[in-house]
C-alpha cells in the first residue's frame, strides 16, 4: 500500500465522477459559517475517506490562504501549552484561529484518549478558537492521515491561522513537515540526548526551535547541543540557521517574542513565494499519491491479487527465489489491463 506522510487511502474509481456523499444542506451551512457544519466536514474527512475527492473539489476553490503552523517535538515538552499561548496571541492580533491536536490511537484497542484540548481550555472559552482533537488512527503515531484535509476544511471555513499539534513520536516530525507551512520544533532542557533521537530531517527542516520550560536547569546545555548540531549541518547544506528561542509557556514568559518571530517567519514565507511553492509541492504529492493509490486499488481489485501475492511469497521462501520475476510479470499484466481498457474506450467512441 502506498504510504506517504499524511495521505489516506482513497477508494478506487477516482477517475469516475464523484458521487454526492455530502448533503447539500451541509454545504450550505458550512459556507454560511456554521461551526457545527465545519466540525461535521472534518468528521467526514476523518471517517469517510471516499468523500474526500468530493470535499476537495468543493473547498479548494474556496481556500483563503490560511497559514498552517506545525508544532512538533518529543512528548511532554509542553506542545499544547505553547500552541495555546501562540493561538491566543494570534486571536488578539485579529486572526481567526483553529487548532488541530493529534493524540495517538492505541494499537491494541483502536481507541484514543484525546487530552490536548483540556490544556487549551481557556482558548476555546475566551477566544472562540476552533479546537479539534484528532486521533492518529493509521498514521502510525504521527499525524492522522486526515490532518491535511481537516486543515483544508478549516481554511475554507475562513480560519486564517491553523495550528497543527502532533503526537510527538514516531513519524510525527516528518508528517507535519508535509502539511505545514511553518514548523516549530519544541524542546525542553535536560533532554539533550533526545536531539540524537529526532528523525533525520527535522533539524534541517524546522523553521523555529523553541526551548520550552526554559526556567528549568539545562537550558544552556541544550542550546549548546543544538548550536553544535546545526553548525555541522548548516556547513554541510549551506543554509542559514533557524532562530532558537527560549520560553516558559506555562508561566507565559517569552511567548510574546515567540509569537512575534512566528509572525515574522510567516510574512517572509508569504512574500518570498515559499508559501506558494509549498502549496505546489503539496498538490504534486497529492496527485502522485492519489494516482499511485488508484493504480494500486485497480491492481488489488483484480481477482485473486492478494492471494496471489501471499502464495508467491510462501513459494519464494521455500525456493529461495527473487520476487522480481513475479513483480515484472504483474506490472506487465497491469499495462495490458490498462491498454485493454483504452482500446475498449476507443472502441466505444
Amino acid at each position: 500500500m502506498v504510504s506517504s506522510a499524511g495521505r489516506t487511502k482513497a477508494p478506487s474509481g477516482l477517475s469516475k465522477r464523484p458521487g454526492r456523499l455530502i448533503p447539500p444542506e451541509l454545504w450550505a451551512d458550512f459556507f454560511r459559517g456554521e461551526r457545527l457544519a465545519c466540525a461535521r466536514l472534518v468528521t467526514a474527512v476523518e471517517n469517510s475517506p471516499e468523500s474526500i475527492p468530493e470535499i476537495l473539489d468543493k473547498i479548494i476553490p474556496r481556500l483563503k490562504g490560511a497559514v498552517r503552523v506545525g508544532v512538533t517535538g518529543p512528548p511532554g515538552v509542553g506542545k499544547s501549552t505553547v500552541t495555546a499561548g501562540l493561538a491566543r496571541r494570534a486571536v488578539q492580533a485579529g486572526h481567526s484561529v483553529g487548532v488541530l491536536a493529534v493524540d495517538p490511537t492505541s494499537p491494541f484497542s483502536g481507541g484514543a484518549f484525546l487530552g490536548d484540548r483540556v490544556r487549551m481550555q481557556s482558548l476555546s472559552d475566551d477566544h472562540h478558537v476552533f479546537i479539534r482533537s484528532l486521533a492518529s488512527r493509521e498514521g502510525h503515531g504521527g499525524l492522522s492521515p486526515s490532518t491535511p484535509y481537516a486543515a483544508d476544511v478549516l481554511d475554507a471555513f475562513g480560519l486564517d491561522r491553523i495550528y497543527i499539534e502532533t503526537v510527538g513520536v514516531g513519524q510525527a516530525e516528518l508528517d507535519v513537515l508535509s502539511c505545514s507551512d511553518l514548523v516549530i520544533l519544541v524542546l525542553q532542557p535536560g533532554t539533550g540526548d533526545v536531539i540524537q533521537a529526532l528523525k533525520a530531517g527535522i533539524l534541517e527542516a524546522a523553521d523555529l526551535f523553541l526551548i520550552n520550560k526554559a526556567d528549568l536547569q539545562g537550558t544552556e546545555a541544550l542550546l549548546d547541543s543544538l548550536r553544535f548540531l546545526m553548525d555541522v549541518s548548516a556547513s554541510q547544506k549551506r543554509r542559514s540557521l533557524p532562530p532558537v528561542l527560549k520560553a516558559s509557556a506555562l508561566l507565559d514568559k517569552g511567548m510574546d517574542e515567540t509569537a512575534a518571530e512566528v509572525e515574522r517567519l510567516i510574512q517572509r514565507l508569504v512574500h518570498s513565494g515559499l508559501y506558494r511553492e509549498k502549496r505546489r509541492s503539496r498538490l504534486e504529492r497529492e496527485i502522485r499519491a492519489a494516482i499511485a493509490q488508484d493504480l494500486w486499488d485497480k491492481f488489488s481489485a483484480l481477482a485473486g491479487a492478494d492471494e496471489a501475492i501471499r502464495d508467491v511469497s510462501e513459494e519464494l521462501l521455500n525456493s529461495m527465489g527473487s520476487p522480481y520475476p513475479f513483480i515484472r510479470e504483474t506490472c506487465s499484466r497491469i499495462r495490458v489491463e490498462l491498454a485493454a481498457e483504452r482500446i475498449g474506450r476507443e472502441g466505444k467512441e
Partner: protein
Amino acid sequence: MKEKNRTSWEKSFERSGLRDADFSTISGRPLRPLYTWEDMAEIDPRTELGYPGEYPYTRGVHPSMFRGKLWTMRQFAGMGTAIQTNQRYKFLLEKGQTGLSVAFDNPTLYGLDSDHALSAGEVGKTGVAVDTLADMERLFDGIPLDRVSTSMTINAPAAWIFAMFLANAEKRGISFAELRGTLQNDILKEYIAQKEWIFPPEPHLRLITDLMSFCADQVPQWNTISISGYHIREAGSTAAQELAFTLADGFAYVEHAIAAGQDVDDFAPRLSFFFNAHLDFFEEIAKLRAARRIWARAMRDKYKAKNPRSWLCRFHVQTAGCSLTAQQPEINIVRTALEAMAGVLGGCQSLHTNSMDEALALPSEKAVEIALRTQQIIAFESGAANVIDPLGGSYYIEQLTNDLEEEAGRYFRKIDELGGVVKAIEQGFFQREITRAAYEYEMALSRRKKFHVGVNEFINPSEKLEIPLLEIDESVEREQLDFMRRIKAGRDNGAVRDGLGTLTAAAAAGRNLMPPLLECARRYTTLGEISEALTTVFGEYREQPFY
C-alpha cells in the same frame, strides 16, 4: 512458605483443595494462608513494637489509650444553611457524640460566595454554606466552643474560614487559648486527589505555615493541619499508597515549615493525620500501626525533633465512603461497623462512621443516629476498648504492618527521586498511580475477582428503596443569598475595603496573613471577597491533567 522441612500442616493444606477465589487484600496484596511464629522470628518486638505511648508508638500514641479516654466520636456533618446544620449539631451532641466536625458545601470549599456564577445549583447541597462571620455565628449558636472540640474540613480557604471561627469565639468571649479542634488545611492532597484549590502550591503552603506559626503562639490547643489520606484512598489508591502519599505530604509540610525558619518542635506536636478505614479489615489495622511507626522514626531520626510529642502520628479515621452501596443501603451499616472496628483496633484518636444512606444523599437523622450508635456499641459492648492494641503480636498483623512499612519506603524513595512531593505532583506521579489503582480495582470487580455485595454479587434486581432520604430543598440557595445580601447591606463597606487592602499588602510583602484575615473576618468580609483579593496577588491554579 519456608523452604525447609515442610510441616505436616503444609502437606495437609495442599491436599485440601482451594475455593475458587482471590486471596489478596482489597489493595491487591497477595496473602499467605497462614502466618506463624516463624514469621515473628525476624521481628524484634522491643524495637519494632515497644510499649504504647513510647517510641516508636506502634502500639498506640498514649500509654493508656482507650482505658484512659475513649476516641472522640466525631460525626462529620453539614447541610443547607447554618441554621439547619446547627440543629443537626445539637441533635448529634444530644445523642452522645463527643466532638463536632463541620462539612462545608462545594462553593465554600472552593472559597466562593454563594452568589458566584459557579455556585449556582450547589449551595448547601453537600455541606453547610458559609459566606461570612454571620454564618459562623449561626452555625455555633448555643454550642459551648470552650468545651467541645471542633474539626473543620476545609482546605483552600482554611485560613480565612478559621479567621471567621476565631472572630466568632472572640465575640462570644471565649479566649483563643481555650479553643480545641482541627483544621484539615492539607493543600497537597488537593492537588493529588480532592482537587479543591484556588492558587498554585507555593502560596497555599505559605498560608499553611502562617497559620501554624500563628496558632503556636495564640491558639496553642489547635491542630493546625490534618494531613489526609482519606481522600487519596477514596480516589482509588491502594492502602500502601494511602499510607505513603499521606506521610510524604506530612514530611513535605515539615520541610516547608523548617525552611520558613520554624523550629520543628514548635509546630510538629500540632500536626495530625486523617486516614480511611476501608473494607479489608486487617490491612487497615496494619496500615494505621505502620503509620505511627514510620512517622515516629522519621521525626526523631531524620528531622531531629527532640520533643517526643513531635513524634506522634495522631489521627482521625473515617470509614470508607467509596465502600458504600446505593443498592441495599441497609447493609452499609454492617460495612461501616466492620470498618469502624478496624479504626478502633488501629488506635484512632477520633472516628467518624458513615451513615447507610450516604451513597444516595446526605445522612438522614435516623441514619446518622445508627452510625453514632455503631461507635457506642463498639465502645461499650464489644470489649474492643478494654485492652490496648489487642492485635499486637498477631503473626499476620505484625507481618502486614512490616510489609506496608516497606512498601511505603519504596514510595518515599521514588518521590525523592522525582524531587519531592511538589515536583512529583507537577509530574503527575501520584495522580497516575491512583488512577491506575482505581482502574485495576474496577476491572477486578468487572471480572469478579473482587466482590461488592449487592452490586456485582447477591443482587436484588427488583429492590425498592425503603429508607427515608434527606433532601436539600432548592429554597436553601435563595435563603442563603438573601441572608448574605442583608449582611453585606448592613456592614461598613468602607471598612471592608480597607481590610482587604491591608490583606493584599501583607500578602505581597510576605507578612503573616492571619492577623489581617482575622480583621477582615471581624468586618463581615465575605469568603469570596477574600479569595478574590488574594488571587490578585497569588494567581489562579489550572491543573495539567494526568491519567
